[in-house]
């Protein structure tokens, strides 16, 4: 039984969040158990480990994890910890190997996780059973259209059930062609002194801060080559960014969508969007045929932020995928990858990769703007009085709109629906008694047309 009352820490009706949820070390320890040890977490993509022996390292919560394609072609994930004393068996970030060898005593595991060799085994051990001393596996590893996810939970929803109707939106990125999406390059990795929840909800839903927090960057992005005016994504100096004439946020609990729905604005921040848009329009008819009009015309090419609970963001248009790893209550690491459909011509991929670096890479001109307020929201509650405060996310509460796709939609990307949904789901997982309780009980009913 938790000593915290999560029903009070998050007040869904009033859209209030206790500031202590970003600061309290004991809440953080419960998050590692309730969220990061139960939810499906993004581990990597098939394109990164296409062949037997290919591996990469990532984190599930604060657990160091090796994701590896075994000699048999199957992708598994293991704790990066030797069964003997617990040293890491792999220090490289990625590569190809037949064995992971511990640097302490030389125990060696094959790429399917079995303990394959123990130095001096026959002379020094009478009681060692190698078959019981393999690497500790992540309980379940499943793949959705190239995306590899894992969970430590033995029970609870399978990946497809966990993603639910979110698959409808993910497919715009993952299934726009038969070849699908790929991740490109080495991820940017940055550690920021803030709580992990803040960058997640900022990326999935905070359309409000773009015009102001990033004001300097927004004045200059996209200005080379296209002679862009003062407006990007409907945001400019004469426009605060509020635009409900065809943009939306959608709750697909536990996941979220933010989209401009105009089919092109994903490239609005690019200096040289020409080749990207040309390719986009070239493939659009085949995507319409594959995924239908709504997804092919309205979602494909739009600035669309897909939030997969708890810590994955897939951002179409900017064409990046981000994972937020917690590093204690007061710090997180963001890993940012470039992504594109595999069929994308190389010159367009080059534009995308450069653009990701220049906007949201380690030195991205937008990425850096968010650090100060993330730090302040997290660490100012060191002060007892500040810790009693609450944050408020009441914007556009109760506003709904018609939307043909799954989920509950609300108009405008300057809207706090996605952020509210994130904290509602956070509360749900923190209250869950087992992994069977981490999803909403009943599928969300769509409100009637004029809702």
């Amino acid at each position: 039984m938790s000593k915290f009352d999560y029903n009070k820490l998050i007040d869904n009706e009033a859209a209030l969040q206790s500031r202590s949820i970003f600061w309290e070390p004991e809440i953080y320890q419960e998050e590692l158990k309730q969220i990061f040890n139960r939810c499906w977490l993004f581990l990597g993509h098939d394109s990164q480990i296409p062949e037997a022996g290919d591996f990469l390292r990532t984190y599930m919560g604060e657990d160091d994890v090796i994701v590896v394609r075994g000699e048999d072609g199957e992708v598994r994930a293991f704790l990066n910890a030797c069964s003997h004393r617990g040293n890491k068996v792999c220090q490289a970030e990625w590569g190809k190997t037949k064995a992971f060898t511990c640097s302490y005593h030389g125990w060696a595991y094959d790429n399917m996780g079995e303990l394959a060799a123990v130095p001096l085994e026959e002379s020094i051990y009478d009681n060692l059973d190698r078959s019981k001393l393999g690497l500790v596996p992540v309980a379940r590893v499943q793949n959705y259209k190239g995306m590899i996810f894992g969970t430590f939970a033995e029970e609870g929803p399978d990946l497809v059930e966990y993603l639910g109707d979110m698959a409808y939106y993910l497919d715009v990125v993952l299934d726009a062609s038969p070849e699908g999406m790929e991740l490109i390059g080495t991820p940017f990795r940055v550690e920021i002194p803030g709580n992990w929840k803040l960058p997640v909800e900022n990326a999935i839903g905070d359309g409000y801060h773009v015009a102001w927090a990033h004001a300097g960057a927004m004045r200059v992005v996209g200005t080379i080559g296209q002679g862009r005016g003062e407006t990007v994504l409907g945001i400019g100096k004469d426009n605060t960014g509020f635009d409900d004439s065809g943009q939306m946020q959608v709750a697909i609990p536990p996941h979220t969508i933010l989209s401009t729905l105009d089919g092109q604005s994903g490239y609005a921040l690019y200096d040289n969007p020409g080749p990207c848009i040309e390719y986009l329009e070239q493939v659009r008819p085949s995507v319409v045929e594959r995924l239908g009009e709504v997804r092919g015309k309205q979602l494909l090419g739009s600035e669309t932020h897909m939030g997969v609970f708890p810590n994955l963001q897939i951002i179409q248009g900017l064409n990046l995928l981000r994972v937020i790893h917690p590093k204690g209550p007061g710090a997180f690491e963001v890993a940012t990858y470039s992504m594109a459909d595999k069929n994308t011509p190389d010159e367009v991929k080059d534009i995308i990769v450069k653009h990701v670096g220049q906007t949201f890479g380690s030195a991205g001109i937008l990425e850096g703007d968010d650090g100060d307020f993330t730090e302040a929201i997290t660490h100012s509650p060191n002060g007892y009085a500040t810790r009693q405060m609450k944050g408020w996310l009441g914007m556009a509460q109760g506003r709904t709109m018609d939307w043909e796709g799954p989920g509950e939609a609300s108009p405008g990307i300057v809207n706090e629906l996605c952020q509210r949904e994130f904290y509602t789901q956070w509360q749900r997982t923190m209250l869950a008694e087992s992994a069977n309780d981490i999803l909403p009980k009943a599928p969300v009913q769509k409100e009637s047309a004029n809702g």
Partner: protein
Amino acid sequence: MARKQKIAPVGKDTDMEVAYRIERFLAAEARALDEERYDDWLAMLDENIAYKMPIPMNTYRRNRPGKSSICETMIYDESFEKLKQRAAREDTGMVWLNDPATHHIRTITNIESFCTDEASVYDVRSKFTLLRARRDKDHISHTGTRKDLLHDTGNGLKLVARTVFLPARVIVDKNLNMFF
């Protein structure tokens, strides 16, 4: 002007006068940046500059990448226009994280100046420490190496290429919005 990217290994030293001018150039460049005089800095660059900073690779020495999509990726991969754009952002007066001002102190040292195959192009290696101090206690120091190509024009030295190596796989800083 030919701009071969071929950089000599440690080659013949430049003469002392050139070495002196190069040291003065790098010190003046660091001071222009410390003092946020971005127009002055941009004037020290060749308009065909290639400005790069790769992500350090934490792979095993014997790594054979195979067919993985993971490959070398750049933190900075900038043309002159992109550097101008970054400088313009600093000058908008709307970069809140630099108000109150962020203080930068660049120390450039271990400067080595070598001749290249081209008489007017020098291969210059240096090491730097970039101290950034802001707010109450937000003090961060980045240390790395640089590999520059400088072109000796009738109009003084110009920076033609810079590759910055910052040996930190995970950047522990709220932003890297600064010129190295």
